[in-house]
């Protein structure tokens, strides 16, 4: 609970209870090892102020002290929201990110992008529709902006504990959104994003992952860059994927040619570079039953058969890359698996042609 410093009763009451609680919960989320870094990035409390706090005490007392310090400095909801954005930026893989692609109408001119205009337009659209909504922005590198939206309704204050995040790269038509639990607000969010960025249409891509940076690499096609060129002169055998070529002359590999073929095919498909990180690939199959035999119960069925296959892995693409060299699958792998970064999809629907 809040501890009121003696003799400061008048000033301490200025911060709203809810905002104070929001500060407390947000700071409590921050791991002790990151506390200093995040507070410094936030830059709301100065060096001097931070030095007055004992960072070696137990976490709950530390958090209490910090909240008090924020109160004394008249921190507002806006400051708290900014801290929340920074926390999320440090812990971006705690959220699952969807990818949206916007497009301009045919024949529309490419206007010069104005960040301030975008921000005010975005905020205006949401406020007009919902009245109670908290919108915060934080600029990032590569002309990107992180947007935090806490949703309310006409009659209810915004819920600060279930915000949506949008990362919009202004020089591109792509935006990444954290899958919010409040799905009903998604159309409004899409609309606001489209109109404010002067686009015409927005489409959700079939691409989803926790790893925002990997999604970025896939969508901006930045994953296939081999940086070092001197490695390409080493012969293929030495660059094999972790399987040692045994120097003991008493061991003879009979299928050396086949092994080299597999390495070569794998390298052609996956390249030398580290793969972007995804955790799932999902394939939904909906086809009618096909049979060589005439008749049979299933052949007469009008409804298509449905099937769902889901591949999961801590690092799906690296796992797929190592399947053939490990001898678990034949090379080349099915194009349905290998097309994932190229097509920018990890959710597929397979239907009858």
């Amino acid at each position: 609970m809040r501890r009121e410093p003696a003799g400061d009763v008048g000033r301490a009451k200025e911060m709203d209870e809810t905002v104070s609680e929001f500060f407390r919960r947000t700071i409590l989320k921050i791991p002790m090892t990151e506390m200093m870094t995040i507070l410094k990035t936030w830059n709301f409390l100065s060096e001097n102020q931070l030095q007055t706090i004992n960072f070696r005490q137990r976490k709950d007392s530390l958090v209490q002290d910090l909240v008090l310090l924020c109160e004394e400095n008249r921190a507002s909801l806006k400051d708290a929201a900014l801290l929340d954005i920074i926390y999320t930026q440090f812990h971006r893989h705690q959220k699952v990110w969807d990818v949206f692609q916007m497009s301009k109408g045919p024949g529309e001119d490419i206007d010069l992008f104005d960040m301030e205009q975008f921000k005010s337009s975005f905020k205006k659209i949401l406020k007009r529709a919902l009245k109670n909504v908290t919108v915060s922005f934080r600029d990032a590198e590569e002309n990107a902006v992180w947007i935090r939206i806490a949703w309310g309704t006409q009659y209810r204050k915004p819920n600060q504990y279930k915000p949506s995040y949008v990362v919009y790269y202004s020089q591109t038509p792509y935006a990444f959104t954290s899958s919010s639990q409040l799905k009903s607000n998604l159309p409004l969010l899409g609309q606001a994003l489209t109109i404010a960025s002067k686009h015409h249409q927005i489409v959700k891509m079939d691409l989803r992952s926790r790893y925002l940076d990997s999604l970025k690499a896939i969508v901006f096609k930045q994953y296939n860059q081999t940086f070092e060129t001197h490695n390409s002169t080493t012969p293929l055998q030495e660059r094999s994927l972790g399987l040692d070529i045994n120097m003991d002359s008493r061991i003879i590999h009979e299928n050396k040619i086949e092994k080299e073929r597999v390495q070569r095919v794998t390298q052609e498909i996956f390249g030398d570079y580290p793969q972007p990180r995804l955790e799932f690939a999902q394939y939904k199959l909906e086809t009618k039953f096909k049979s060589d035999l005439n008749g049979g119960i299933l052949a007469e069925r009008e409804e298509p058969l449905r099937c769902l296959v889901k591949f999961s892995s801590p690092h799906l693409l690296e796992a797929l890359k190592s399947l053939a060299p490990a001898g678990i699958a034949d090379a080349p792998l099915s194009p349905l698996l290998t097309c994932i970064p190229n097509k920018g999809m990890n959710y597929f629907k397979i239907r009858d042609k």
Partner: protein
Amino acid sequence: MSVLRPLDKLPGLNTATILLVGTEDALLQQLADAMLKEDCTSELKVHLAKSLPLPSNVNRPRIDLIVFVVNLHSKHSLRNVEESLHHVDATFFLGKVSFLATGAGRESHCSIHRNTVVKLARTYRSPLLFCDLEIGDFRATMAQRLVRMLQICAGHVPSVSALNLLSLLQSSENPSLEDL
């Protein structure tokens, strides 16, 4: 066309050669390393192959023992072994072929039933060994057994032949109807 025959080459002096056939190269490599660590009076040679037939243009010594490695986690590895068996001459199955099933320890990962490999081994009248090759200690023990079997199959152990060994290894617990 190219079929492996047990006696189509002359043996090398004091040499015993084993051929490990299996899809997972890393496992075969580790097993080979473990076998070569064993103290052995014979000169050992280990050939690793993903599948049969072997490339024909290579000069290789006489093969004394073939071990087909099946990973119970992978139907692909079973299918590979089944197809490779067609390239082995029938006379090899007089004690010079053995099956090795790995992965039985992790029951939840097994996609091949234990009985499938048991039936396969019984069809080919050859011994079936179980060993989780991923576990160092088990692998070392299996390597010891294989070295001993290899020496017998190469004729390096006096008064024990591959055929003797085969009849000793045949399981008498569950005789099949045809055997009775």
